[in-house]
């Protein structure tokens, strides 16, 4: 168990380092921040000064090393726009994004897992078909379409909810539901197939043959086993919440990390974009680490390092 935990943590750390590197490479390869920040008409000396100021005149490799060293010291650079620490700029938006994503996550887990289990238990019935049709619709429709349709119905037509902004708690409903519905669609599908897989296993028949009634067979012998593959996709969902917020926050003019990212990319505010990319990567890695550790708790086969005799 100890070795298992250790190896998962090591893997997570390596992934974070790779993400940090990738953020650097992508941003330095896609255009000159000096031109974008100062505009095309600035005098050459201004460019020079800007580059020197931000270390952009150094060779790329040196830039990378000093960037990495700074991150290790907890210094993630300053916003090129207003000179404030990039980390602060991003962090003050994080709670706003959590305000959307946490309800969205709860919504998609509760709805998605329940729907998936019911679909599997009623395989090929109309319940199954209805749930799966809704699920396919849910994840083939792009999130901006889903968001716009919901806004059209509830804000424009029915006028029961605001279409954008962040003044009241009602403003969180449409963006959360948009994200939640899409997540629920994905979770439902995975839960269903995990359940079907498990329900076909010989140990389910053993449990029935033992005299357990069907409800107990499902609760004691199918759900714990189906949770194992479902966890993977839940980890993935948690990891992609911040990334998913980008589109939804833009549609509903919600001032969270997602909209900050859109603005920072447009302005080539390197440090801010970097911090957000690292934050997204970090959430993904953390979510996967938690999932890996949870696996160890649920699945005894992973917990024991000794192979079967």
């Amino acid at each position, binding site marked *: 168990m100890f070795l298992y935990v250790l190896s998962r943590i090591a893997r997570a750390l390596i992934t974070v380092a790779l993400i940090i590197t990738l953020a650097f490479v992508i941003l330095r390869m896609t255009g000159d921040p000096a031109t974008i920040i100062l505009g095309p008409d600035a005098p050459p000396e201004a460019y020079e000064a800007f580059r020197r100021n931000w270390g952009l005149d150094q060779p790329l490799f040196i830039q990378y090393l000093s960037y990495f060293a700074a991150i290790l010291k907890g210094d993630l650079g300053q916003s090129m726009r207003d000179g404030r620490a990039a980390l602060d700029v991003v962090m003050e938006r994080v709670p706003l994004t959590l305000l959307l994503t946490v309800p969205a996550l709860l919504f998609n887990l509760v709805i998605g897992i329940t729907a998936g289990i019911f679909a599997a238990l009623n395989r090929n019935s109309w319940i199954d078909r209805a749930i799966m049709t809704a699920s396919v619709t849910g994840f083939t429709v792009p999130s901006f379409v889903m968001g716009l349709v919901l806004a059209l119905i509830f804000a424009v037509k029915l006028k029961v909810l605001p279409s954008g902004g962040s003044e009241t708690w009602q403003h969180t409903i449409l963006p959360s539901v948009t994200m939640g519905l899409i997540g629920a669609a994905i979770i439902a599908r995975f839960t269903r197939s995990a359940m079907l897989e498990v329900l076909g*296993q*010989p*140990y389910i*028949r*053993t*449990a*029935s*043959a*033992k*005299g*357990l*009634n*069907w409800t107990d067979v499902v609760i*004691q*012998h199918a759900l*714990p*086993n189906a949770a*194992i593959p479902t966890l993977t996709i839940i980890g993935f969902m948690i990891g992609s919440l911040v990334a998913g917020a980008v589109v939804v926050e833009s549609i509903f003019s919600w001032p969270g990390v997602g909209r900050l990212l859109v603005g920072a990319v447009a302005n080539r505010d390197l440090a801010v974009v970097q911090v957000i990319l690292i934050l997204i990567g970090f959430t993904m890695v953390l979510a996967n680490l938690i999932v890996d550790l949870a696996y160890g708790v*649920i*699945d*005894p*086969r992973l917990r*024991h390092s*000794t192979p*079967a*005799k």
Partner: protein
Amino acid sequence: MTHSGKQTIFKPKQQDFLIDVRGLTVDFDIGNHYVRALHGVDLSIRRGETLGVVGESGCGKSITWLAVLGLLGGGAKVSGSARFDGQELVGLTPRQLTAFRGGRIALIFQDPASALNPVHRIGRQIAEALRLHRGLTGKAAKEEARRLLDRVGISNAAQRLNEYPHELSGGMNQRVMIAMALAGEPDLLIADEPTTALDATIQAQILDLLRDLQAETHMAMALISHDLGVIADMADRVSVMYAGRVIEEASAEALFERPAHPYTRGLIGALPDIDGPRHRLEAIPGAVPAPSALPPGCAFSDRCSHVETICHKGPPILGLVGGEDDHSAACVRLDAIEDQELNLASQPSKLVHQRAGLQEGVEA
């Protein structure tokens, strides 16, 4: 001696039987229509008796017993009758059947490793059966589970209770399955290919264990196997199944000495020689037809070397084999083929050797 006996339908006395299956049929829903996989199976077992059920893979041996206990799921339609100790099981609700499952009728399966739930400890899985059928919980259940593991020959029983199936070998897991089956103190144990997934030495040990337990508890047993060696070793009576029907039924002795049906003769002819390599000889060419692709008439007709036009007329029913009152077979050409020598003279002794061979395995 008249041979008209085979026209008489074999009809044993009902009251002797612990379980009496009559005309059991199973139809599977395969999307737009049903396919019949069991065509009226008759089987019966007396108290304390071991019935061997033999036949190639796909003949319907497993689904017969799964159908009796209502374990085939919603896609299967079961009809016919299965009286267990006077109580009709076919048509009971799932809730009524749970009282029989794992209690008076216990099952063990072919692949013990996948028949146990990988995420639960062995002790918990046995305790579940003890709670359901004997009302034992907590310490009492744990103590009884330990005793059962001990009884089925698992050393370190107390420690094993806390282990998971993947930490045990296949043979050990089958012992756990047997312990779980014993938890309900069954009158009937259905052992579905209990040793097929195990190697020869372990196989012999498990069979010995079953024999001992049976002597001790007087439970009846349905031993399903495609291995005639195992059947010869264990069974009092034998039912031979082919393509969803019982095609021959007799005492083990009669069946191995005087097999009547060409299929049974083929199976016995296919027994590997104990001195030779241990692989199955291909004595019957071809394979069991799928339930959806049965030939007209006798299902065995397309593989039978004695086939005549009459065989395609309709499926033959079980009739007494000439001169015997406890031996029946479903073949319209019994009279014609009876006298043909199938080199069976040496078979009984071959089986005796095989039995000896299995016993040696235990000591080794």
